[in-house]
Each structure stands twice: as C-alpha cells, then as structure tokens.
C-alpha cells in the first residue's frame, strides 16, 4: 500500500520534473530565436525539411477530406433542402477545425517524428556534444531554427490543406452532386467571417505548430542516447503531440467560438 503510494509519488514527481525541464529548455531556445534573424539560411533549410517535405501528404489528405466532407454532408443536407449551404459548411469545418487539427496531426506524424529522431540521433552520435565542445550552443544552432521552421511552416500547411479541401469539395459538389457553383461560393462568402473563422483558424495552427515542434525537439534532445531511446522519443513525440493538439483544440475552440451562440 505504502509502496504503491510511493511509486505513484515518484512517478508524479518524475513527470513534473520533465515538464519543468521542457519549459526551461524552450525558454533557452526562445531566447536564441532573435539571433536567427542574422542567419535566415538556417531557418530556410528547416522550412524545407519540415514544410516542403510534408507538403505531399498534406495536399493529398486535404483534397480527400474536402471531397468526402462534401459527399457526406450533401447526403444529409439534401434531406432538409439545405444543399445550397454545402459551401459554407464545408468551408467552416475545414477552416475552423479540420484544417488546423488534421494538419497538426499529420505534421506530428511526418515532421515531428522526423525531428525527434534526427535530434535524438545527433545526441546518440555525440554530434550535440561535439558542438558544445566547439563552443557552439546546440540549442541555438540546432533547436532554434527547427522551432522557427515549425512555427512558420505549420500555418502555411494548414492554409493549403483548407484551400485544397474547399476546392475538392467544390469539384464534388458541382461536378458530382449538381450544386450550383455560384451558390457554393456566394453562400460561403456570406457565412465565413474573415476574423471569426479564417484568422482564428490561422491562430490555432500557429499554436499547434509551436506545440508540436516544441514536443518533438524536446523529446529528441531529452532522449536517452541509444537506439532504443531514440525510438521511444519518436513514439512519444507522435503520441504526446497528438494528444496535446486535440486537448488544445478544445480549449482554443471554447475560447474562440464559445460565445458565438
């Protein structure tokens, strides 16, 4: 009994310590971010590794999500004679929720795991250590550009996801289901608000980008420097950042759209 209690306590303390460490870690990285302005090349490299390489999966997923959304919603809405509202419903689902969230989940799987594995391997092969011995702070040289790249790439990816999803929905709605193409767009414009919907969606994706990248680089940096340790860090990155994205999405949605009545 006492033993179980002690184990629970130890577990909780360990978790808390890790959480504290991850905050100190991010603080030191963020302090280093301004230096990147002098070396934009490092960030460009990371936008390539994080953003461009995630592009195919984001675009394909966005296209199909938009098309399926249009199909499914049409089947329900046509029963209420509300099929002209297909445009706004597809657009709102994508811009407010699916765009930022699904992009963040795919991003965690594609870019987050790669980041954690890369940094974990750099640690395991003493690259980070050797950098420190060359008087180069890995937090500034390795971690900070990756964090910046993630924060910059994520909203762009989410916007592309939503845009291609809405276009996919348009193709299905007008080509397959016979919805009037003018109605699709004009209803959308009448119902989607630039600030309430589009900008809030972008804010969401910036937050998700920050959190997923943070978790990925921290897990990599904090990994036990063995192949098992790196594998575990990669798994933990995907699991933790997916959970964080879903949890944060609820909080952000409640804050942003809660009073929309």
């Amino acid at each position, binding site marked *: 009994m006492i033993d179980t209690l002690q184990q629970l306590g130890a577990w909780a303390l360990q978790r808390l310590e890790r959480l504290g460490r991850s905050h100190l870690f991010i603080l030191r990285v963020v302090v280093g971010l301004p230096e990147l302005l002098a070396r934009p090349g490092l960030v*460009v*490299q990371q936008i390539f590794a994080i953003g461009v390489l995630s592009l195919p999966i984001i675009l394909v997923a966005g296209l199909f999500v938009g098309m399926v959304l249009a199909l499914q919603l049409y089947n329900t809405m046509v029963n209420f004679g509300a099929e002209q509202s297909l445009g706004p419903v597809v657009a709102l689902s994508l811009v407010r929720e699916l765009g930022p969230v699904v992009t963040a989940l795919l991003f965690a799987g594609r870019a987050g795991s790669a980041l954690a594995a890369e940094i974990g391997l750099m640690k395991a092969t003493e690259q980070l250590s050797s950098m420190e011995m060359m008087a180069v702070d890995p937090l500034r040289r390795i971690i900070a550009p990756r964090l910046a790249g993630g924060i910059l790439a994520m909203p762009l990816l989410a*916007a*592309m996801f939503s845009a291609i999803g809405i276009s996919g929905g348009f193709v299905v709605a007008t080509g397959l289901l016979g919805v009037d193409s003018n109605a699709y767009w004009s209803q959308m414009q*009448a*119902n989607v608000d*630039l600030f309430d919907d589009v900008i809030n969606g972008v804010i969401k994706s910036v937050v998700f980008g920050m959190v997923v990248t943070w978790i990925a680089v921290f897990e990599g940096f904090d990994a036990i420097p063995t192949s098992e340790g790196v594998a575990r860090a990669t798994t933990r990155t995907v699991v933790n950042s997916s959970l964080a994205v879903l949890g944060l999405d609820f909080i952000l949605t409640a804050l942003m759209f809660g009073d929309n009545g």
Partner: protein
Amino acid sequence: MRRTKTLEIWVGLFVAMGFAALLMLAMRVSNITSYIDNEGYEISAAFENIGGLTVRAPVRVAGVRIGRVSDIRFDEDTFQAIVTMHIEAQYDRLPLDTSASILTDGLLGENYVGLEPGGEEEYLKDGDRIEITQSALVLEKLIGQFLFSRSQGSDK
C-alpha cells in the same frame, strides 16, 4: 552550393503556395469583401419581429444578393427592430416604395432580407428608410394560429 539553391527555390515555392492559400481563404472563401467594400450605401427598415436574422445576413432582390445586414438595433420608442442594410454601389436604382420582408432560405435555412421593388421613379439613397415591411414568419405563431382556427372551425 547547387543544393542550397534548389532548396531555396522549393522553400520559395512553398511559401508562395502557402500565401496563395491564405489569400484564397481570405478573398474567395470569407467575407473580406464586406470589410473592404466601403462604397455603396446604407438603408434601414423597421420590423415588428426579425425572427432569427443576424448581422451579415444577405439582402436579396429576386434571389440575387445585393448587400448585407450591417446592423440590428432595438428602438425603445416604437418597440421595433431597426435593421440597417449595406447595399453595394452598383445597385443604386431601388425604387422608393420598395418593400422589405424577412424570409427564410429553405425550410431550415438562414434568414435573409428580401426586397420587393415598387414602381416609383425615385430611388432609395443613403440613409433612407424602407416604409413597407413584413416581419419574419415565426413558425410557432403560425402553428398556434392554425390550431386555433382549426379548433374554432370544429366547434361550429
């Protein structure tokens, strides 16, 4: 160094595509036009009951969207709702005796303001008020009336 160059081109393409997507979301999907569009003019109308009409709801003539609801106020003197509408500049020939009613898009769709042009030679201009209005049909009231008339009918 060729590697860096192709990499930079890719990133440039990526950023351009991202901004194009954002631009599309802003211009094509959302109502940014209603924020930018300061041209046009405003007219208002008083209704007994506006039902579920909200700000930004469309204003239509013959089914064509010509503007949007920009403001809804409650007038404490007349106990009426004052609905202000923003009409796009190109539609500047609405007759003075145009009537306004609050309609519903489909059975469960959203409310909008439908304008019915009259026959006057003079046109509505900025700040004018539409005199002839018809309130929203409130479903509960309709059903109530229907049941009332039925029960009266069966009594006789």
